[in-house]
């Protein structure tokens, strides 16, 4: 099958977490996945917009989904919160015809193509592990991670609520990060906290609590033997990676767990250059962990 998608990186990947977008594009190019830009797509609004303006939030999401539908492609993202927001809207717009009619009336009146409810919202991690032929993926892993112990951190918004996500994302056959880690030649680390909250959505309102969440999750992974952590989400990346050293000071514990987006580590295992993957933009230096498996 041809793997062509309407690509929705999300606001964080366009600015602060740009390296995740670079890595996603580089990896997709190697794997024969075509990512088509969505020039009209706005910010999804996250749960915040659902709180302030629930109907506007639904219409904004419908407009994004409609753009992908007009392109004739399923939508792919690399941000868990965008994934949850758009999946939630897609779920309701597909299952509640009355709601879809009401929202489409507003779209039409505003000069926007109505949304017919025909596309799927996917995470790039799911595309790589579920849709790319595992033999092709394995053949591209030219720098296998030789037993590197890797903690997969899922975060919340690619797993829950179960009602809107296909249950396979949560059950044993889900386990997308673990499957990818094995394909890359690494060893998935089991630890408590991999499906818990990174704290992103309270980073400004409850920052000490956010720091405590970062420390709890990272230390749990480290205590279980993790040398490195990967996430499928640019917001988790920002918190567990970029903010980790601030959390360290706040909770007065040394963490020092290198963290990166799954696409960055996948890129490294495929022999893509560190520059292209934006590795130098990581706050917690992964050099030592990578050098231990010959990826200096």
């Amino acid at each position, binding site marked *: 099958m041809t793997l062509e998608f309407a690509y929705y990186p999300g606001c964080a990947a366009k600015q602060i977490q740009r390296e995740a977008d670079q890595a996603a594009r580089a990896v997709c190019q190697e794997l024969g996945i075509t990512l088509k830009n969505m020039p009209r797509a706005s910010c999804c609004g996250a749960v915040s917009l659902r709180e302030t303006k629930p109907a506007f939030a639904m219409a904004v999401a419908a407009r994004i989904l409609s753009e992908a539908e007009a392109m004739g492609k399923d939508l792919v993202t690399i941000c868990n919160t965008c994934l949850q927001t758009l999946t939630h809207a897609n779920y309701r717009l597909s299952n509640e015809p009355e709601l879809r009619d009401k929202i489409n009336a507003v779209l039409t009146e505003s000069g926007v193509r109505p949304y017919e409810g025909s596309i799927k919202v996917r995470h790039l991690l799911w595309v790589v592990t579920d849709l790319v032929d595992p033999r092709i993926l394995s053949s591209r892993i030219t720098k296998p991670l030789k037993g590197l112990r890797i903690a997969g951190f899922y975060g919340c918004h690619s797993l829950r609520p179960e009602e809107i996500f296909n249950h396979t994302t949560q059950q044993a056959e889900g386990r997308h990060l673990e499957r990818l880690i094995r394909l890359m030649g690494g060893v998935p680390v089991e630890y408590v906290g991999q499906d818990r909250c990174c704290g992103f959505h309270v980073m400004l309102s409850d920052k000490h609590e956010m720091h405590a969440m970062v420390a709890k999750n990272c230390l749990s992974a480290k205590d279980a033997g993790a040398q490195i952590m990967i996430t499928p989400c640019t917001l988790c990346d920002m918190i567990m990676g970029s903010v980790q050293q601030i959390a360290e000071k706040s909770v007065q514990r040394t963490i020092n767990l290198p963290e990166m987006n799954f696409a960055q580590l996948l890129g490294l295992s495929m022999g893509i250059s560190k520059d292209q993957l934006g590795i130098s*933009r990581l706050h917690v230096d992964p050099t030592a962990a990578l050098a231990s498996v010959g990826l200096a």
Partner: protein
Amino acid sequence: MTVQTYTFRIQRNMPGQVGAVQSHWQDYQVEAEPNTTILTLLETIKGGQDGSLTFRQSCRSAICGSCAITISGRTRLACKTHVGAVAKDGLVEIAPQKNQPILKDLAIDIRPFFAKVHAIKPYLQDGPESAGKVTSTAYDQVNHVTQCIMCACCYSECTMTEVNPRYTGPAALAKAFRFVSDPREGRKTERLQELSKQDGMWSCARCTLCVDVCPKEVAPMEAIIKLRTRGMGKGFTDAAGPRHALAFHEDINQTGQLNEFTLMMRTLGIFGALKETGMALHLAKKGKIPSPFPHYVDGVEELRRIYQSLERTPVDVETKAKEAVPE
């Protein structure tokens, strides 16, 4: 159904000196069909193998909420959980609820949980906002949350409660929504003001665990989202949470994209943002500086038209509870 042998690895907790609890894990073997409930098997163990094992139970019908414990990592009702659905290679790990003081074995002290429920005043109050008439659709919000059985599964899993024991928590907030949305309630605004304070509804981190673990489909986080909408609607916007939320529609209207450069300032105010200069500099060390120049998405005028249309003619998109009909 075939009978299998399951290993129950149960956390045994004994009260020690000065309130400290001593814990160890103890294994029990039980024979059961996969659709046997965990509660039945705990009773089998207590009756036939170890009378000292302590746990709470009462109705056996998922209506009293007494038997909520941690089963294979998640808080669930023992009476509603089939062993075959949670065993991993024949092993079931059982522990008390999280985020709660342990009394003995699987029994926890439920008082701190109920103190939070009592704090939101879980009863109708007379007051200026009491509706005289109650229409047939008046309960389409209330009925979302009335099926809560106070089992505390959500509270046990709540990631915010884990790091902030002062946080009101999902069950109490869902209960608060039940009264805020009840047409007969007389003090809705007062309630929203109270809930907008520190450690209240704005502290939810939206991890959505409460939605997935609730055995009665209450979806506490959805109730919290609706509380926030109503709180902002009453003008309670003077805190980081609501200010942050309000930034989104401003930006989407203006450019279509979130302006991360000004987001912190708008959320925390000038002085608050200055206190976070260290964080901004830390991010800047690795070139993580959001662009101060807004990027406009194509067709941004469509977004403005949508917004204006909805401001003129509001559309109700809130989920409605199914009508409660007698069985």
